[in-house]
């Protein structure tokens, strides 16, 4: 009897006892995950007094649900109070994630299919040219001219002196460099980025956020998609090349359809990051392009955290993501093959 409880016929069908313990652990973690979310849900329907006078758990039993927060957020401050940041989050999140996916997937494909041999000396020259440009800019030359001439100078140097240097790096180095961009603490780069966008008159625009989010998402996309694409057999492409298809056509017709699960999973993860980003948005936006996380943070003002408003806004923010997650759930498990390739 005991034996039947602890053993199972197939390795993939756990024994009843194991099933029981599995459910206990999984159930416990489900509570750990779901209870705080439940708390958000009930808090969104409490009036301030119900929040401050001890914990109240069940609507209609412990307290009378109130539309206080809804009134505060949607009605009394005008509906654009929430629709504007919401549409900003929606547009910025979706567009930047899509762009990052397109640019990143192209780069990931290129890094798995071509050999690159960049020269450290040329990169050094590039950095020197940029520093030169900055110094000239600090001396009062308009930024466009300074940067433009720095780039031209670099192209000239790279094609003349640059060709004499021997040492090269490989794809692994490029990948590592791209991915290492994720290491940059945002605060280390934010002040120059602010000044840059100010010079380009892009402050407080969705464009600025989209460009920035696309860039900070690239390392993740490249990381995920490189492994995914590397796992797609080369033979499929080779037969297409024999038929005379171009590189782009192969990427579009063969690689992308095969990579759909990877693309979806990557998109979802990147979207979550961009949807919820706070620090960059804090620095780069004012009123027009504020996103939802800022609105949530702003609920902690001179009267302390407005728990009811915060709860409601967080719920509004996660609702579409939960919907997407349920819709695309089956792709996620298939789509992440990070680290599947060794090296």
């Amino acid at each position, binding site marked *: 009897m005991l034996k039947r409880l602890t053993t199972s016929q197939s390795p993939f069908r756990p024994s009843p006892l194991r099933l029981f313990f599995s459910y206990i652990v999984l159930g416990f973690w489900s509570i750990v995950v779901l209870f705080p979310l439940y708390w958000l849900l009930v808090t969104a329907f409490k009036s301030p007094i119900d929040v401050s006078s001890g914990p109240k758990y069940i609507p209609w039993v412990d307290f009378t649900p109130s539309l206080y927060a809804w009134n505060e957020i949607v009605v009394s401050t005008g509906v654009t109070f929430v629709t504007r940041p919401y549409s900003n989050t929606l547009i910025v999140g979706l567009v930047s994630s899509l762009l990052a996916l397109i640019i990143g997937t192209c780069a990931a494909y290129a890094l798995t299919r071509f050999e690159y041999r960049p020269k450290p000396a040329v990169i050094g020259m590039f950095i020197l040219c940029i520093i030169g440009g900055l110094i000239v800019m600090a001396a009062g030359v308009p930024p466009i001219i300074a940067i433009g001439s720095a780039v031209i100078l670099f192209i000239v140097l790279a094609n003349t002196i640059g060709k004499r240097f021997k040492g090269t790096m490989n794809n692994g180095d490029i990948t590592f460099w791209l991915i290492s961009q994720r290491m940059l603490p945002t605060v280390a780069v934010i002040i120059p980025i602010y000044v840059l966008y100010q010079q380009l008159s892009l402050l407080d625009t969705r464009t600025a956020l989209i460009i920035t989010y696309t860039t900070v998402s690239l390392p993740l996309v490249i990381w995920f998609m490189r492994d995914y694409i590397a796992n797609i057999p080369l033979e499929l492409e080779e037969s297409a090349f024999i038929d005379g298809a171009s590189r782009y056509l192969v990427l579009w017709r063969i690689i992308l359809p095969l990579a759909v699960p990877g693309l979806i999973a990557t998109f979802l993860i990147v979207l979550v990051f961009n949807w919820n980003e706070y620090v960059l948005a804090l620095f780069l936006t004012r009123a027009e392009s504020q996103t939802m996380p800022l609105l949530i943070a702003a609920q902690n003002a001179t009267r302390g955290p407005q728990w009811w408003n915060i709860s409601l806004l967080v719920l509004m923010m*996660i609702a579409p993501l939960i919907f997407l*997650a349920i819709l695309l759930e089956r792709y996620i498990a298939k789509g992440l093959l990070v*680290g599947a390739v060794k090296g």
Partner: protein
Amino acid sequence: MTPTQSGGSGGVIYAEQDMSFRARLSRSLERSSPNVLLLPAIVLVLFLSIFPLIVSLLLSFSRFQFVAGGYSIRYIGFANYIKLFSGSEQRKFLGAFDAPSIIALVMGAAALTIIAIMLVQYVRSNRFSPVGLVMRLVAIAFTLALVWLCMITLSGDGLPGTLVVTLIFVFVGVSAQYLIGLGLALLVTQNIPGKRFFRVTFLLPMMITPVGIGFLFRMMMDTINGPISPIWKLLGLADFSWVDTAFGARTAVIIADTWQWTPFMFIILLAALESVPREIVEAALVDGANKWKNFRHIILPQIMPVSFTLIMIRTIEAFKIVDMPQILTRGGPGTATESMTLYAYNQWRALDLGMSAAIAYLLLIVVTFVAMVYVRILRKRVVVD
């Protein structure tokens, strides 16, 4: 590019001259496809990271002030860094020191032994080279400095500074997230009913904005009006507070961080486990391997590369922790939960931009160092094994 240069023979020249503009365009596009595909990513990253990094570096050697009609930036050499390492910011950045306790000394000795063994192995191995040795010695010096710093700030009357606090958040937090994530993934990968429910449910915390989670956990940790307060009262801990003591406050931050990021570990490890070919596991079971051996020798090697990458991503992200302590504990009590990013952010808010840039740079150096050591040492041992 003229046809003569690219064409090999006369026939080709004629053929190419006959080609339409479109065909020529597509041909040159095809030839430059490696660049077309890769360059957008490179240019964007250069545009938004290399350039700002250079400017920030300059800024960290200067003092920034608002003056009539704009701002002034004055070069002050290493003054900001000196202040952090030995001046008035030392206590906050590095911490307050005390003689290391016995436990700390034992741990330190253990670390030293491991490093010594690894070094001896390296010197004897065929990979040995003088440059490699110098690089390793530098890395060892850096590691020992960090270990020593942890030893003298975490024992006795010592107080850890923002650097050590950040390291604690990263190592404790990421370990907890990995272990819990792996455990949950192993359970869910079994063929059990309700799998899909768990998969979606466990993913949820990741989707909430960190700002929201900070506020959410302030409610959870509230022992007066919070939902868990009756349980505390029941346990006779009505006057307990998470945030009264340095230890409790750090635990609270790590719990909130773990709640948020375990899903990330979980979902990717689950994907990895599910891609382990069934036949391998089945074959192993038929061979009579017991469960632990099955896990240790068959499943673990399969998920090692994924784990390696995953821990790397999370470690890098965890070094940047800011929203959670800022909202949950505001870096308090004292400076017990102030991470380096929060530290830099606070300096920025006080308009000490030079100091802010200097802190951010030091953080960058630490992250890069940890990532390099991790890649160089662990990957060789773990993945190529």
